[in-house]
């Protein structure tokens, strides 16, 4: 499994072992920071030696080598301390929690005290097993900057008790952040987020974890149709639905149904239900907009003041209103969001779509042009400029 037929090391299979080995060390009472370094060193050693000398039990091998590194590090640290005549700290007692390794590590990496960028970087390294170089490439920052971000995050965790269960809502948010960061460089972050969410659903019965996995799968299934061969954005209503990944959709629907059966709905389950209805339509015309609107009503009912607390959901709902009750009603819904979202490109893009629906191409063109001026993504800006030009002609 670790070796491909060519004799090359299968890095993917190697990375799967990381959470188990790291969680084992941290549960034993080792420091998270030092353990993470030790596991990374053990991985490098594995890549060096395994092609020649494959181990019988890869996980045990990594644990042994990482432990040796930890002992070495402690020895030199102890020597330093003796030189400084500092007092010895009592060894920390081993934690006894035996929950799932991935979940345990996700709670460590998504500690609520860390900034989102740090939670993302630490999760990708400690749970995903990606190298600092790969994470840096994925976010287009210098490797030294990402290394610094990771080591600051680890320092922030230093000395904290990491055996208590953490905040699952934060973990879900971090995984979704990784998913929406997309894929760049050598690393498919969306695929990585799906892999981590799958691991998470094995460790917790919480329906929102399955809701998140379903949401990712149901969105990811449309990826092959989302860009044309020239890299241009293709909107949902114009996508070639034959290119959607049916296997991923089927899995997403299955996961979603098992979550909804628990009858504790949350935002990820509701968003996944909306995505499932889009995926289910054989053509744009057959989209079940009344049902989508009903799910949006549930979604915005999750907060007391959705205009301020969840404007993105309100904007999505405005599109559904436009398709069910008419474009004018949809535009009225967007009016309520002007104060909160009026500076964002999405608000103008949705207005462009609704103006088109109402048969007013010149208002649509003006809205798309406004959206293009506010876009923060190159492909989206180009797409909105094209939409404006298309509406004008």
């Amino acid at each position, binding site marked *: 499994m670790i070796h491909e037929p060519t004799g090359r090391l299968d890095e993917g299979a190697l990375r799967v072992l990381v959470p188990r080995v790291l969680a084992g060390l941290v549960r034993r009472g080792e420091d998270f920071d030092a353990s993470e370094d030790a596991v990374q060193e053990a991985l490098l050693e594995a890549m060096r030696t395994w092609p020649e000398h494959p181990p019988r039990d890869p996980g045990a091998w990594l644990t042994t080598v990482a432990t040796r590194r930890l002992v070495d590090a402690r020895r030199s640290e102890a020597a330093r301390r003796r030189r400084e005549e500092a007092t010895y700290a009592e060894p920390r007692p081993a934690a006894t929690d035996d929950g799932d390794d991935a979940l345990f590590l996700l709670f460590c990496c998504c500690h609520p005290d860390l900034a989102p960028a740090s939670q993302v970087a630490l999760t990708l390294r400690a749970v995903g097993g990606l190298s600092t170089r790969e994470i840096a490439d994925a976010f*287009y920052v210098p490797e030294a900057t990402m290394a610094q971000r990771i080591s600051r995050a680890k320092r922030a965790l230093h000395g904290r008790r990491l055996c208590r269960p953490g905040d699952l809502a934060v973990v879900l948010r971090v995984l979704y952040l990784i998913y929406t960061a997309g894929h760049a460089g050598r690393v498919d972050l969306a695929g990585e987020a799906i892999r981590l969410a799958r691991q998470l659903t094995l460790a917790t019965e919480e329906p929102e974890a399955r809701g998140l996995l379903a949401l990712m799968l149901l969105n990811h299934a449309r990826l092959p149709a989302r*860009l044309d061969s020239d890299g241009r954005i293709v909107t949902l209503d114009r996508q070639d639905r034959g290119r959607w990944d049916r296997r991923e959709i089927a899995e997403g629907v299955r996961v979603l149904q098992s979550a909804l059966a628990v009858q504790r709905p949350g935002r990820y389950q509701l968003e996944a239900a909306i995505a499932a209805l889009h995926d289910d339509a054989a053509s744009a015309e057959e989209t079940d907009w009344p049902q989508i609107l009903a799910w949006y009503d549930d979604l915005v009912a999750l907060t007391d003041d959705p205009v301020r607390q969840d404007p993105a959901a309100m904007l999505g709902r405005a599109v559904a209103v436009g398709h069910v009750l008419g474009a004018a009603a949809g535009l009225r819904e967007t009016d309520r969001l002007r104060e909160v979202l009026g500076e964002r490109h999405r608000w103008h893009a949705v207005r462009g779509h609704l103006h088109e629906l109402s048969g007013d191409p010149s208002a649509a063109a003006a809205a798309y042009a406004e959206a293009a001026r506010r*876009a923060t*993504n190159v*492909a989206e800006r180009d797409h909105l400029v094209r939409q404006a030009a298309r509406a004008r002609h």
Partner: protein
Amino acid sequence: MPKYLLLKHYRGGPEPHHPFPPMDQWEPEDVEAHIAFQRHVSELLKENGEYVDAQALTPARTWVRYGGPDAAPVTTDGPHPETSDLIAGWYMIDVESRERAVDLAAYVSSEPGPGGGPLYEWIDVREVMSDAPRTTDQA
């Protein structure tokens, strides 16, 4: 995480907070303090894990355009060199939010000027467009 350029200008931008002479007329220790502060900003950004790039530009400017088929490029140093904006350099940062970028720009602007007090220089904050393809659909 969004990236921003914090642009410094030799000239141009809004009305300055207070008039100050060009740097070559400052006291040598003020020049040293100013340069040391810029180095310190780069180091701070690196320490924070927010650093992407920092560069300075020479003030000499050449405008170039296509000269047409079989013609040499057309160049000029500009019709209004005294009044147009002239970029002096930048920090590129990768941060959590626009608010963080604005805070860092204000810090850059607090750099010491002649006499050692803050320069209150205007910093132009520009968001860098992301190149990563989105994984969700849009209208």
